[in-house]
């Protein structure tokens, strides 16, 4: 085989393996560290004794998180949002991607349609006009504002439509001759054949809804309606913003409960950590075929 033989090559291989392993560790180590802190006693965490393994193991911080009603309420808002948002996103992604995957000869005005959608990726009114529109529609402080403002994920549409375009034309032609209509072709042929790509964009939609925090802060006047990530922003990160000098900041770090923060962050990251391994093996295939064309 290739690459065997010379000493320099062998040394390169050893160093390459070590370097990439180190790099992969650097990517997950902070999460493991966070998890270890969340399971340690607060005194051990504050003293900086925790590295990758919990010191004075305790589940106290998780009990605190689960008993914190604001946290659970925010979790409820997020779950509802993910459920509604992902369903809507996926329905609209497929419904938009299918027609746009046709050639201009099969869909009159295709180019115009495409540009109407793509333009929204390039230009937006900005946060203030967006806020005013939502107020005008009476959607502020409801879960619908979070679901609707990103109802059509155009980036996902582009991935899926490129995937659809790569499916053999003959399939569609044969189905048309057999008397199937477009609804039938979309649902019974295109969708099942695009499982990898659909899994990918579903993962993106789930992660997008789960991770969004700024729209919560922008559109919710009452913190009671915050989704989980917005809530986490205010309790874990945002406190920095009200501090005006570096000594205050250090003081804040000292008094705040490090283990409770860690537990809240870990719970906030957990669903993505769970969903990700199941869907990630699809997405290399899904994205690459969808976005990079020859």
């Amino acid at each position, binding site marked *: 085989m*290739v690459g065997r033989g010379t000493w*320099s*090559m062998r040394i*390169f291989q050893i160093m390459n393996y070590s370097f990439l*392993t180190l790099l*992969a560790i*650097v*990517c*997950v180590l*902070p999460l493991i560290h966070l998890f270890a802190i969340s399971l340690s006693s607060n005194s051990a965490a*504050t003293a*900086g004794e925790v590295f990758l393994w919990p010191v004075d193991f305790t589940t106290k911080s998780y009990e605190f998180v689960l008993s914190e009603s604001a946290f659970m309420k925010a979790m409820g808002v997020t779950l509802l949002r993910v459920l509604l948002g992902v369903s809507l996103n996926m*329905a*609209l992604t497929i*419904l938009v991607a*299918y*027609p*746009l995957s*046709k050639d201009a000869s099969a*869909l009159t005005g295709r180019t115009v349609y*495409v540009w109407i*959608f*793509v333009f929204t990726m*390039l*230009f*937006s009114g*900005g*946060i*203030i*006009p*967006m806020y*005013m*529109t939502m107020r005008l*529609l009476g959607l502020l402080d409801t879960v619908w504002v979070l679901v609707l*403002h990103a109802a*059509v994920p155009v980036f996902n549409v*582009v991935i899926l439509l*490129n995937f659809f375009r790569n499916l053999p034309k003959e399939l569609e032609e044969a189905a048309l001759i057999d008397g199937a*209509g*477009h609804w039938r072709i979309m649902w019974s042929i295109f969708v099942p054949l695009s499982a990898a790509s659909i899994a990918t964009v579903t993962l993106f939609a789930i992660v997008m809804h*789960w*991770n969004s*925090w*700024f729209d919560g802060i922008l559109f919710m006047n009452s913190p009671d309606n915050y989704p989980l990530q917005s809530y986490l922003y205010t309790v*874990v*990160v945002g406190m920095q913003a009200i*501090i*005006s000098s*570096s000594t205050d*900041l*250090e003081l804040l*770090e000292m008094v705040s409960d490090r283990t409770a*923060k860690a537990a809240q*962050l870990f719970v906030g*990251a957990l669903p*993505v950590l769970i969903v990700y391994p199941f869907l*990630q093996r699809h997405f*290399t295939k899904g994205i*690459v075929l969808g976005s*990079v064309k020859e």
Partner: protein
Amino acid sequence: MLTKWRLEMPLHLMLIPGLVAILIFSYIPMVGVVIAFQKFMPVKGLFGSEWIGLDNFRYMTELPGFYRIVWNTIFIATMKIVSGLVVPVTIAILLNEIRKEFYKRSIQTLIYLPYFLSWVILSGILIDILSPSKGIVNLFIQWLGFESQFFLGDNKWFPYTLVISNEWKEFGFSTIVYLAAIAGINPSLYEAAIVDGANRWKQIWHITLPGMTPIIVLMATLSIGSILNAGFEQVFNLYSPVVYESGDIIDTFVYRIGLVEAQYGLATAVGLLKSVVSLILISVSYFLAYRFANYRIF
């Protein structure tokens, strides 16, 4: 004619829900940018407010620190663009040299992971591990015999902390694109090179890298459009008034003057200028990509 229409009609029908949604939630807000030209009063509304032409734009350029903010934005964005090209290309080449399939896939899975966590979660982690008094990074630095550094509270370090932590989140995901490009290289080129006696170094240099050039050029070209996007979500989560001097970017500035100080017209003017410049840059880069790399998004 009629049959063609009958066949096509379902396609148009399918597009209606999506069109209605973006009309309401993307195009109507675009109309709202007119407040950039108004002395906007929420009580008077969009149609009752006084028109003041370009006054908001003029006022914007006279703000103290405006050019500082533009500079911060471009400086941070440029560093992110450059590192966002160099790091994933390098990692993709190194990963490609890994022969054990299982090992390669495990590494890939781990390096994509931070990409899928929100900036809230990652910032929570960063604030903790970078803490000057008890964060592991500084404990390590102290252990090495150096003085601990306040990476998030020191104007000297803050922009670099942003760039490095952004790269930590993003590089794994960007690597996918380059790995795909490498996978597309014709294997017979390598076979021929081996017959000619080329070692792995020479193969990387003369086959892998040139094989990736088109996609590297494409990504570099397309990145021109994001020169004014230094990353709102990240900066907003990591900064504090202590580091406004080095870390305040256009988007965070718009948020503060608009929603915190309620200067709606001014904030919209700043945001509009940024959007228009970005739109022009994106169009130019897309045109260049189309022209020279024959790239199309759809």
